[in-house]
């Protein structure tokens, strides 16, 4: 299928017009800044309706197979649609664990039956997905996960505790990493990967309150929960390999995601805008030399990230440490976001002490909330420190 420049331009105009016309009005309550912060039914309903609408309009899952609810088109269309969503500042497509990780996985290695059963519900937002990897005692060291899965006839019986389960209380399915064999020589070889239903007896998802005061993830208890044996993905013992593959999608290192925005986009221009009317020592803040110097550093950092994405696509300019830009992208972006937002609060003077709920808080406490939420990305999906280990070992070749 060949796509002309003209087709793409026309398409961009079409999506752009649609986003402009369909961008929801401010609902009058706080929306989550990312898919990891859906904490109320109100937010859930709103986001579900929005994602459904985007999918129905044909702007989600554009590159997924047609027979499973996708558009059957080249991925270039989805990336244009995503760009336009970003440009118009529309809400996120919140079913990210389905859209971005479980979905691509099922598309890549699932059976036709699994594709038929799961993919459409992911796109339409009817079926929310969550991820049951982390446990109270095993976070970064995921390979040591201890939640047990024991085969009994045509079922697996699950016992154990998962934690930090984003949308665990709303999800219909979970991608679950559990131990089918506790006696393997290598801890990784005892793990298996399941597409587990959440609506069976014995599963209890208890919301956990976050640093922001809001909700978004749960501690998820399994007590003799019985799931069908066909929930197993791949074979027993292949869980680690499959989990690593999902993490590749999650970190953007492998393509296949359905598209849509996972995070509210917060850029430095937004921050500079709010600094314009602030003062320090009785003079405009933006005339303060120390502030200016710090701001330029941040601008450079944001710009270097954008330029890095461009350079990553130019082979002769990446010969030294191939893939360093791709592999370090999460670390660079999330750490930058964290520092930028922290800086934004620091500039507010006494008003920096106010939080969401105070009517005098600047932009309703937006930056305070955004700063706290930035840790979801520096911790979730592999902490920055673990990312640094991976880069050091895989790109620089340093020993473990």
């Amino acid at each position, binding site marked *: 299928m060949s796509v002309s420049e003209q087709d793409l331009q026309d398409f961009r105009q079409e999506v752009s017009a649609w986003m402009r016309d369909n961008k929801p009005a401010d609902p009058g309550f706080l929306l989550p800044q990312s898919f990891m912060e859906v904490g109320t039914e109100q937010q859930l309903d709103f986001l579900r309706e929005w994602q459904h609408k985007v999918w129905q309009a044909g702007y989600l899952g554009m590159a997924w197979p047609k027979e499973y609810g996708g558009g059957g088109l080249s991925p270039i269309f989805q990336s244009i649609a995503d760009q336009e969503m970003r440009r118009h500042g529309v809400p996120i497509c919140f079913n990210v664990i389905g859209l971005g990780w479980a979905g691509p996985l099922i598309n890549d290695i699932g059976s036709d039956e699994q594709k038929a059963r799961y993919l459409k519900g992911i796109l339409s937002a009817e079926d929310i997905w969550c991820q049951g990897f982390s446990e109270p005692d095993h976070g970064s060291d995921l390979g040591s996960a201890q939640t047990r899965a024991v085969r009994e006839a045509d079922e697996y019986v699950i016992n154990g505790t998962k934690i930090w389960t984003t949308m665990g209380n709303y999800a219909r399915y979970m991608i679950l990493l559990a131990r089918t064999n506790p006696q393997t020589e290598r801890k990784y070889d005892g793990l298996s990967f399941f597409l587990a239903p959440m609506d069976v007896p014995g599963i209890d998802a208890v919301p956990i309150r976050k640093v922001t005061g809001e909700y978004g993830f749960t501690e998820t208890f399994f007590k003799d929960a019985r799931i069908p044996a066909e929930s197993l993905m791949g074979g027993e013992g292949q869980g680690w390999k499959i989990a690593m593959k999902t993490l590749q999608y999650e970190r953007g290192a492998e393509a296949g995601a359905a598209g849509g925005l996972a995070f509210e986009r917060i850029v430095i221009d937004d921050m500079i805008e709010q600094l314009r009317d602030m003062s320090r020592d009785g003079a405009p803040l933006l005339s303060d030399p120390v502030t200016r110097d710090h701001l330029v550093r941040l601008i450079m950092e944001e710009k270097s990230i954008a330029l890095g994405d461009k350079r990553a696509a130019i082979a002769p300019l990446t010969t030294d440490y191939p893939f360093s830009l791709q592999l370090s992208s999460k670390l660079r972006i999330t750490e930058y976001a964290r520092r930028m937002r922290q800086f934004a609060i620091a500039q507010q003077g006494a008003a920096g002490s106010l939080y969401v709920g105070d009517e005098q808080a600047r932009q309703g406490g937006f930056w305070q909330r955004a700063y706290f939420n930035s840790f979801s990305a520096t911790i979730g999906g592999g902490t920055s420190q673990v990312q640094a280990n991976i880069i050091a070992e895989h790109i*620089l070749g340093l020993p473990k």
Partner: protein
Amino acid sequence: MSVIANTKLSFDEDQAMIMEVAREFCRNKSTMQAVRGLLDSASGFDSNAWRELADLGWLGIALPEQLGGSGLGVAHTVAIVEAMGRSMLSGPFVTSTLAAQLVLRAGSSAVGDRLLRDVIAGVPATVAQLESADWGSDSCACLIDDNGQLQGSKRFVADAEVAGWLVLVSRYRGAPALALIQAEQLPPAAIKTHTLVDETKRAATIDFSGLQLAPEAIISTEGLSAALRDYALLGALLSAAEATGSAAACLDSTVEYLKTRKQFGKLIGSYQALKHPCVDILNAIDASRSFLYHAATLLGDEPLSRDAEIACRMAKAQASETLLYASDRAVQFHGAMGFTYDCDAQLYIRRAQWSQQQFGDAAHHRKRLAALLLDE
């Protein structure tokens, strides 16, 4: 408009080919042994390598075809300079390229054309600009009097001793002017060599007092102010290119050591206190390279655009800090070995101190970036 705005970045086949050839050339001509062999030589560079480099046409890459250059533009020299930085290849390439750009951009003249032809043929040229240590000052006391005679001196003149041509930044009859001077014209004992922190580099103070200029050697065109501004920006960019190359080589050598040295029964590279800063350095180098080639993308023969100015300044601000950090950690991470003259870390940490002071340090550029980005 967004402060990020322009993020163009492209690299054509010519550039890719030049980059490959340059890396290969520099690797062969400038082994670490060769670099060390030149440290206390008078000229500081290998004249055979210089000859070959001129024969390859590199000095003419950014100069017009009608003068014998290849007319590709100064963007095409960025990869060469980065390769030189990586191999610590010394010599007056950057100095000569910049002097030629200044003369070219100041406007055509017979003497200027002679200088440019000479540069293409391999005669080094340099610019004599600074009088104080302050890159931000434009006061000028080294003046051309109404009769064309010079009075005063310039400091920090790069490659002064080997330059066949000197481009003096001065004033004549109340307006900015360049004086194009041949080395033979210098008064006796005019050059006093500096002792530089970077022993691969050469620079001197030159006393021009008493030198008599022919009228045609004085260039005082309308475009001169813009040419001087662009010269400073291109200087920042090429210094950034060299520093980025040096930082990459520095990281490589540190990483190599971390993979071989053992303490407490383990390779020291397995300690995160060493590992994670190496990742920070890698990321900083990646940022430097992105700025470099972004800036190169925005360059042409015409006066530099606002976006190009921003890009050159960002490249220098980033590269200076990157090399300072990479080399500082290189010394520390080699332990006492890193404190020795024999360890290559000394070459990089010395290069870093020198390089940050070429065409303004990071703070100098951030200050100007703030004005460009926040005030307009």
